[in-house]
């Protein structure tokens, strides 16, 4: 384990855990594949359990590594979902713009996150499958309004044609970065807000400039 840590430790300044949620079939796995590997798989099956992917993006002059959890939409066990949200600093609430039911579920998902996740978590409403304009069932405006009411970021994406996928992640990670870097001074409180054993919030400081940051944190 230590070996691996050593190899990875130099790659990034921050590590953020971001969770993808939303109804089954809205395209969570595909948007993740598009973001992490720039792939799109037409006949993907529903995800079992959880899958992980990472990608490092540059925000300001920092390397931010996003560790994205692609969860199964149909997971109903609270014990497991809470494990998903544990330590997450951002969540993409995804719906399918051609499927109004999936949009309606957003409220439910939001509630789940508010219950189980860190209160400072950054939420983003993502309307996926924007390429299927002719089948649209959820107007952009409505979703936008809903997002602003609930203080969510909002974007419409298409994993198929890659529209806005990178932008969505870039946006949420920037928001997270800003929110948490602003909180760095309050890290003690932040620490306490973490789940009991506190090992999963992923704000890692690069070893090089750790000396100064360290003192800040403690």
């Amino acid at each position, binding site marked *: 384990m230590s070996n691996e840590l050593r190899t990875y430790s130099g790659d990034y300044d921050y590590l953020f855990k971001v969770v993808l949620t939303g109804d089954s079939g809205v395209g969570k796995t595909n948007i993740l594949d598009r973001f992490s590997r720039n792939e799109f798989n037409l006949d993907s099956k529903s995800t079992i359990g959880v899958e992980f992917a990472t990608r490092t993006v540059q925000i300001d002059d920092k390397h931010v590594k996003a560790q994205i959890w692609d969860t199964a939409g149909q997971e109903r066990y*609270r014990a497991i979902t809470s494990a998903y949200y544990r330590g997450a600093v951002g969540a993409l609430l995804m719906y399918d713009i051609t499927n109004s039911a999936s949009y309606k579920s957003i409220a439910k998902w939001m509630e789940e996150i508010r219950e189980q996740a860190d209160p400072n978590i950054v939420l983003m409403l993502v309307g996926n499958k924007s390429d299927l304009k002719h089948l649209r069932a959820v107007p952009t405006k409505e979703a936008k309004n809903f997002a602003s009411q609930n203080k969510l970021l909002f974007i419409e994406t298409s994993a198929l044609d890659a529209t806005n996928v990178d932008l969505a992640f870039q946006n949420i990670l920037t928001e997270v970065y800003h929110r948490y870097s602003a909180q760095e001074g309050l890290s003690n409180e932040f620490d306490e807000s973490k789940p009991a054993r506190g090992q999963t919030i992923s704000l890692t400081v690069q070893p090089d400039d750790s000396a100064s940051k360290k003192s800040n944190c403690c």
Partner: protein
Amino acid sequence: MSQFNGHSNDNRNHDKSLKQVSRVAGRGIPRVILQQVVKYLPIPDLLRLAQVSKKCCDVVNVDELWVQKLRNMGIWSDDDARKMLKITTQEDDIQSNGRQAEREILFNSNFSIEDNDTDDEWDDFKQAPIEKNKVTEIKEPTLISFSDNADLNSIPPENKEMHINSQEKKKEKLLSSFNNPKALLKESSPLEVISQFKSEYGHARREFMKIFRNLAPFYYDLVDLIDLGQALIFRYFHEPEEQAQILKSLSIFSSADDIDVNHLEYKAKVSTTIEMFESAALQELELGLENKDYMGGVKRYVNVLISLDGAKSCIDLFTQKYLLENDYHLDPQGFFSEQGHFNSADFDSFLSAFASSIGEQSEILDNVFPPKVQAKITFIEEVFNEVIADLVSSIFEVAKERNIVSYLNTFPRTYIALLKFIDNLQTKSAQDKCYNTTLGSIVDQFYEFSIDIYLEQELSIFKAYAKDEVRSFNQQTAQQETATEKLYLSNITKESDKVDFLGSFKRVFAKPFSNSSKSEINTGLSSPSISSTSTPQLRPATTSGSTTSLSLSVLPETGTGRIGTPRGGFMTDMNNITNLPTTEFEAQAVIMMKKLEGINTLFSLELALNLIKAARNSIERIKIFLRVKGQIGLEAKEHCETIFVSLVNILGGDHVKVGFEKALQRLKEYHINKTRLTELDGVNLGELNPKNGKINHAPTLTLEPLAIFAELVNIGDLIQQMLHVFFEEELTSRKLVDRNDFLSSAVNCKRKFEQMLDEGVADGLSRGIDVLMEQIDFMFITVQLSSDYNPLPQSLRIAQPSSPSLSGLKNRIGAPTNNVGPTQVAKKVVELLSVHMRLLVGSTEKATLDVFQQELGVRFFASICKHLKTLTMSVAGSITLISDLNYYYNFISGLKQKPLTPYFGGLKALGQIYLIDGKDSKALGVLLSDMSRFGGIFQPEEIYEFVQRREDWPRVRREVERVMYGFADCVIV
């Protein structure tokens, strides 16, 4: 006759008995007895008897009696007679005599007594001058015999002669009347009487009498003469044609009366006369030939001879003369080059010269002989047998003495040459069809004798060659095995090579025979063999010396090698080939050999190629005889099949099977602890993309015995495909063997071979799976770190001296989750599996491959489960665990083996139980009780086993068990 004779000889009182007979006959001997008696009477006696009484006359007149005589002469035909009967019946019907007439005729045909013609006939008979003469002639001997008190039949020859001489004058008189044949003979001449004969029921006596009347004078004249030159026939007939004709007629007539005591003697006399005449005619003919008077004397005497006894003797004369004039005693050695090869060009030119000479001769024959005689055929046949058959046989002898292969090559070539020769002789005109086909059959007949020997030789030579090849291969590899180590190529690029190779193999096959026929069987060996013999020295040194030498010293007997050979090594090999291949086929073979040489200890593609080539040459040679109809064609066909069968048997049974056995032996001897994979440290592991299973980096890890085995399967598959191509191209496309004929030995033995291959593959795979799984278990144990799924808690890690760079302060915010990729061991295991699962792609049947992959998958699943049960998982480590399980799942789903995905999906779901926080122990219990989550892959007991591997198990156990089994607190306390 003999019975009657015997009886009368015994009876001393001969005249008395005769008197008695006549008296009794006159008085009314029963007709039945008379009818029996007449059967044994010679013709003159019959005539005499006819005069005894009306009744005797009736008996003698019975048609059957005469039909028998005519039959003896061989001119009576029942078919003709029946036809005649039909015609006359119809005519009678028209004449409205109706049934009565028919009945009458039928009746007459049996008895002929009441025939209306009888009286006329009888009158004719009586009035005919010959008959009168006969009657007197007959009377006299009777008188003599009576007076001499001796049996008529026991008249001594001189006596008889004397008596006949006494008739001479009468005969002369009679002959003078021949000058006016019409007056003498009603409707026929002695020359034509036989050819004018008609078979007709009811008129046999009349017809016979016609012949008798015409020929008897000449016959009895001839048989009684001493000086045959004085014979009446030669005096009466002057033209040789007529003489021949009458002699012929007499020879037929001579067999009419087989009752007569002197019958045989007479016959012999007639044939002596004929012989004399014939030799005289032949002399004339020869004279004519010498004078080249073809259209005159020759033709005339030819016709004479033909009319006498067919064309045999004069064609013989022609042939003998021809052979004498043209001396064709050739030295068979002359047709062989100094190297001992049969020189077919010389042979061809000799044959064409010969053919033109024969052509000239047969033109003469055509002119001289009448067309119906087929003199040409007989002549050519004779000459062929005399000259060519001898020559060709001695050529075979010489070839055999020199070299058996040379004989095998010579045999069909002479046949081709002779076919050409015959072709030259054949006429273009359609009317000579019979002639042409007969000519064709001359050669075939000749070859029918020797083809058996040839085919046997062909087969035995092939077998011997093939066995020898296999044996020497085995010896060679046995030596190599002990001395050198082998390289084993990775399998990745092999597929396209195989396709290329097979393509060219097929292409070369399609080429005409002429190309390859020039090369003897043995030349096939010369160029590619270099590769197999020289490879040990040429092998590039292995890169990671330490491991290799170590394993070498441990396991020299298995020829341990290492894997992941640098490609460049083969390029240097290529430069060392001194004998450049001469054909595309061989070039391809050499390239292929280079690529596959690592496994030449087990199967040799080159050996297979050589054998197939030899078989092909054999079949090509035999093929020439296939088009021949009848026995030769059938035998040739059979032998083609037999050669194929023995090819498959030797290649399959003696080579491939042995190779498989060796490979299996190696697989069995393989122990995971003895040998090791390539050092993992130095190798930069390629990133394996689980979705498509492609390995982006060249270096691969393979288990040596399994890799060998996979190569073996590849080669086996190649050999099988080569055999298949061979089978299709050579046997089925030429209609030698029907692909669908399940009784055909070739089809059966091919099927057997394929079956054997499949069985070998299956056995090897089953052992291979074991070995591979052992290796995977070994890797799990040795490579997996216990901290992989159970990272040390933050606080402890700070204290660890081994990671000084990790400051607890720096990483205090849950660093462990930063690594979500699969662990090294997962990558290695998956790569190992992936390589081996793909080893066999394309080289064996899809079904076999599926079974192999599925079996591997299931075993892999079991292995993972077993492995997980030995580890401890923490909530933090669960992410790594899930990553690994996802990695396995993706790899498996990339195989597209549907039955496997549920297992690995179940594993994925299982991974989740470690993700749940210890505080949620109650929820954990609920989740564990929900069996549907794991897709029915795991038993509850198993799930329980797995959950025990949680690092915090002691803490959560109580809660979990309470939920799972409904235990109350008190129960546990």
